């Protein structure tokens, strides 16, 4: 599939997920079980993505000390400050410093 087709397919799918109940199922309710599962979509996918974007072309997870430390510090900053701009800044600094040292 070409890059554009992938993007287009995700775009169409996104529109469907946003419009489904407004356009088609206005009188339907989402079953409780599905509602429960939907709450866990974001954390599960984001947790998976953190690892997935660090997989190299050989199928290995390329996490060394700088990456691991920066992600842990980043998580701590996000938890303490609820500020993701600060998380980005502090995480990148930890990553740069450790990469220069290790």
């Amino acid at each position, binding site marked *: 599939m070409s890059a554009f087709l992938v993007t287009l397919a995700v775009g169409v799918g996104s529109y469907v997920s*946003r419009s489904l109940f407004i356009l088609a199922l206005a009188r339907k309710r989402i079953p409780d079980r599905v509602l429960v599962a939907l709450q*866990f*979509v*974001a954390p*599960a996918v984001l947790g998976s*993505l953190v*690892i997935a974007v660090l997989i190299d072309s050989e199928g290995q997870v390329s996490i060394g000390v700088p990456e691991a430390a920066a992600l842990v510090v980043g998580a701590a900053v996000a938890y303490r400050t609820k500020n993701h701009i600060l998380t980005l800044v502090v995480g990148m600094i930890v990553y740069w410093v450790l990469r220069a040292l290790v």
Partner: protein
Amino acid sequence: MSVDRAVVRRGIIDALPLYVPAMPFALVIGLAIVESGINPFVGWSGSWLIFGGAAQLTVVTLLGSGAAGFAIVTAALVIQARHLMYSAALAPAFQRQPPWFRWLGPYFLIDQIFALNSLETDKDPKVFRTYYLASALTLWVLWQVTTAAGLALGPVVPEEWNLEFAVPLLFVALLVLGLDSSPKLAAAMVGAAVTWLTASMPNRTGLLIGSLAGIAVGALLERSRKR
């Protein structure tokens, strides 16, 4: 007329502060497009075709890593599934709207637009529509411009800064900000662990397996907690 104008202004003013946290996100997407090596215009077209940061960033980074199309589309759409909740929550308010707006409105239904407009559902239909469009178009225009700016910035940033590491960091930040219960933490941990264990599977299918495992574990824990 003046009432309309006041509603438009309120929509714009309410939307602006919500855009501040999205700004670095848009810049990271622009940088990730450059980093991925895909056609920059195709990468940027996700800004208006998808209009959703997490899904667009996933598409761009996975395209760059050579993942299979079906795996990318499925992963991105799993992320977008949360919009079903927004759609269901706003459906009653949209029933009082003309067809053109019922078709156009959902296109803009991102997290911030839901957050703002779910507070407006008992307003007069015309006020609801005006406020919705004003807040939505504000965020939409800013998003298009900032992702394009990230694209322009990409080639200027030196390679050795390794700014692509901002992508997993941003995902960690978004993850932690949404964690408000232990089943959610478990869902994230299981998702990460299973993705790691299945890392060598072809076409990044491990991402999907990890996500589904995380969702399943979270939902099971939540159900047993409620009993």
